């Protein structure tokens, strides 16, 4: 599921490159967030043959190997920070210390293979009550955050950029732990400013263009303020 509101062309290069033999779908309104409790990417949900969830959304990877296109980093401009972004802690783990901690990328696929072979007897298959209990917390404020995200999404696609950004900002305040709500919004504005093949990966103001960045924070600043293991929590 590609959680991207901009239409199929934003996702097409990646789907074409992967050439999957499984269904590959577009989720422009982030229904995975509202219906399942997805709050970050990549997130994986396990569902058994009866349509019962046996693991709620959690960070997961097919392998520890992760590669960026060779020309990607060279195409990235120097990035600044949102003027009001929280300062990084002096003794924090740093952006990469946070991003590479938590869920074990090496063993996640082994857990899936175990479940594929053993089904309900797998130690990784959870009971129904535990699935619900382990799904993301949701308060009334988070429901409002989701409603405002949907409004923002609708307004952006209708060409009402500034009204959409106002709703995104309020959404981020109400549900600060939802990274897809934040990354989607930052990416839209980053792509406006940089464009090209990798403009959607820009999730902060370009250096020197910080003043009119419309959000309270940016990707690096928020990640640096998460504890090690907090961005991709270890669940297996």
């Amino acid at each position, binding site marked *: 599921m590609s959680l991207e509101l901009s239409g199929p062309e934003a996702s097409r290069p990646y789907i074409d490159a992967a050439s999957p033999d499984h269904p590959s779908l577009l989720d422009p309104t982030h229904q995975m967030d509202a219906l399942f409790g997805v709050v970050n990417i990549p997130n994986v949900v396990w569902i058994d043959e009866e349509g019962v*969830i046996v693991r709620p959304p959690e960070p997961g990877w097919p392998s520890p190997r992760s590669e960026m296109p060779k020309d990607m980093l060279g195409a990235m401009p120097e990035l600044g920070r949102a003027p009001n972004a929280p300062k990084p802690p002096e003794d924090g783990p740093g952006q990469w210390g946070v991003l590479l901690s938590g869920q074990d990328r090496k063993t996640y696929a082994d857990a899936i293979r175990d479940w594929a072979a053993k089904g309900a007897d797998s130690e990784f298959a959870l009971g129904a009550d535990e699935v619900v209990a382990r799904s993301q917390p949701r308060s009334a404020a988070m429901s409002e955050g989701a*409603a405002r995200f949907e409004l923002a999404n609708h307004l952006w696609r209708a060409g009402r950029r500034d009204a959409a950004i106002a709703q995104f900002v309020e959404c981020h305040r109400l549900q600060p732990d939802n990274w897809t709500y934040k990354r*989607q919004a930052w990416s839209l504005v980053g792509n406006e400013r940089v464009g090209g093949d990798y403009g959607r990966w820009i999730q902060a103001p370009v250096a020197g263009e910080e003043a009119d960045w419309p959000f309270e924070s940016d990707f690096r600043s928020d990640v640096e303020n998460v504890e090690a293991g907090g961005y991709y929590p270890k669940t297996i």
Partner: protein
Amino acid sequence: MILESLDITPDEFAEGTGWAIKPEGACKADVCVPLASGGSFDLLATADRLGMAVVHDAEAGLWAIGPESFGGHALVSAEAPELTLDDIDGTPFTLSSLRGQKVLIVSWAPY
């Protein structure tokens, strides 16, 4: 769920939220939440009972209904919610069509 008016039918509410209005209450998967008996469908009362935020953008003339929060978690049941999305060519695909197979849903994004 985006609305231009709060005057919607129970079927429209079910289509947009996944919660069906039945005699026993608002129901999703194996969970039913009792509603006040009698009278016609009351969207605001139902949303309040389910902990769904109702947000009004007066300038845009739109309402948005958030997901349920009464259970304190994103999932109220382990039964997978129904979901229909388009593939890259615009062909709809429904999650429940995979019943009988194990399914992994991987959420990703080009950002």
